[in-house]
């Protein structure tokens, strides 16, 4: 991180569609020293800059959902075109135990793929529960299966897997997959529900939070988690998603 340049230029080597509005951008080389759960700031000069989780570090890969002008511009990039990266930033996941339960809500699946690859490379068991509104919103399910993960799916409209919230898939998976740690990334309501679930079931949990990030280096305060949320999940007040997180840790007493 002490390179003379603020950003490193990468080139797109492959842009693969992952669902109706999400592309996996595979870049031309690795991101050194990246841990699953960390993030990068991606900059397109004259367009903007936003945070993205790392879906793979070697080569650097990000899953981009086209939900606004900046992500649309990223998804429109073709092989050979450049983008600029600063990072890795933040506190990532830490693999604990040998049986891992990963829970992804929507685009939260992306950093979990990087985590699953690391666990599988260590020969450890991984079960992934993916939640989405509908089958069309699901992300990376096949990618997880390809690296030997068990995959459970829940959709709110029942168009794939269990009908309902991902928490139901988590309960079902735990019945015959006695995980030692739960790792989650997704929208806040999902994380709050999973944090409560971990507490009730005395299960160690690691939760990756989403927030608006501006500086990404713990100075501007934009990504502070509000105090009621901190109280609900046992985080200290003034917790910064970009620097203290994005991953928070829960260990049952």
């Amino acid at each position: 991180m002490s390179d003379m340049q603020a950003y490193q230029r990468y080139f797109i080597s492959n842009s693969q569609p992952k669902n109706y509005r999400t592309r996996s951008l595979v870049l031309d080389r690795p991101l050194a020293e990246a841990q699953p759960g960390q993030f990068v700031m991606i900059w397109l000069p004259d367009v903007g800059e936003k945070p993205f989780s790392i879906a793979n570090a070697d080569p650097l890969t990000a899953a981009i959902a086209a939900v606004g002008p900046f992500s649309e511009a990223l998804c429109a990039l073709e092989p050979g075109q450049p983008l600029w990266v600063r990072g890795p930033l933040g506190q990532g996941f830490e693999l604990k135990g040998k049986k891992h339960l990963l829970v992804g809500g929507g685009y939260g699946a992306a950093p979990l793929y990087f985590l699953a690859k690391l666990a599988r490379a260590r020969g450890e068991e991984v079960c992934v529960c993916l939640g989405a509104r509908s089958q069309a919103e699901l992300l990376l399910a096949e990618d997880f299966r390809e690296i030997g993960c068990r995959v459970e799916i829940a959709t709110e409209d029942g168009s794939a897997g269990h009908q309902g919230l991902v928490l139901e898939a988590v309960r079902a998976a735990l019945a015959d997959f006695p995980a030692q740690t739960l790792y989650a990334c997704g929208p806040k309501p999902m994380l709050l529900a999973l944090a409560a679930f971990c507490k009730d079931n005395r299960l160690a949990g690691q939760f990756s939070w989403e927030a608006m990030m501006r500086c990404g280096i713990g100075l501007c305060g934009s990504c502070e988690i509000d105090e009621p949320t901190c109280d609900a999940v046992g985080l200290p007040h003034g917790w910064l998603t970009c620097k203290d997180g994005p991953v928070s840790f829960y260990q049952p007493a």
Partner: protein
Amino acid sequence: MNKVSVDLTCELAGVRMHNPLVLASGVLGTSAALLERVGACGAGAVTSKSCGPEERAGHPNPIAVEWAGGVINAVGLTNPGLEAEIPTLIDARERLHAQGIPLIASIFAPTVEDFGRMAAGVSAAEPDLIEVNISCPNVGDEFGTPFSGSVESAAAVTRMVRTKTKLPIAIKLAPNVPNIARIAFAAQEEGADAITAINTVPGMLIDPYAGRPVLSNKVGGVSGWSIKPIALRCVAEISRTVSIPVIGLGGVSNGLDAVEMIMAGATAVGVGSAVWQRGVEVFAVIAEEMYEFMAGEGYPDLASMRGIAIR
């Protein structure tokens, strides 16, 4: 060598601090919870992020990046506006006073009259000190040359603020002026209780592969260790010229940097970008490093070091 006991307390414009380390404005001062957290991490005082009359979103990203010499930023004075700021300041002050830590409220405004309105407005929240930010380098497109750019404009703002509040006021100055001491002196003559120096140094980073400035605002304020010599020179010049206390800041990231700032004449020492390098815990760490240095070198208190390098 026998170690002496060391007293790190100081008093700034009547405000008592358990150590001289002040959270600089613009870093983590955006909420009561963050200000409280910095206080709990060992700061002697904390400064809220500069607030202006109206809500501002600030500049689009990129707004801040790290580089080899520290950080460059152009956040663009993101703030909730005066009305929303007051309850935040009251909440922060109550939490900080429970810890025995003073709150400094930073204000900015586009006009001299609005500086007066801001000073009167935030006084309702009863911060321990009001810092008057007349030197933000990142809003020139909208606001023109900062008021810190000339003796006359700095004096005009100070005079206005002085008439609108009974609380102590510190005027925050920019380093990029021909004679910063003259501006500090003018502020003192108009009733300032302290000087804060320096604000970030205007600068620019260009990505050579993009052929573009890195910040969306193109220019920004340079902070971090690369500006320390500039800050020390400014603090020394001001301290030689004025009798009011100086909050010295710019590139302070460890205890020796803080000691150097005191030796240049500062009464208190601001810490900002070091939070990026060393985490929020940096305040207690720097205080401990100061203590170690002073104990080892036989300085019993800050007064015994203050200004010794400029005599």
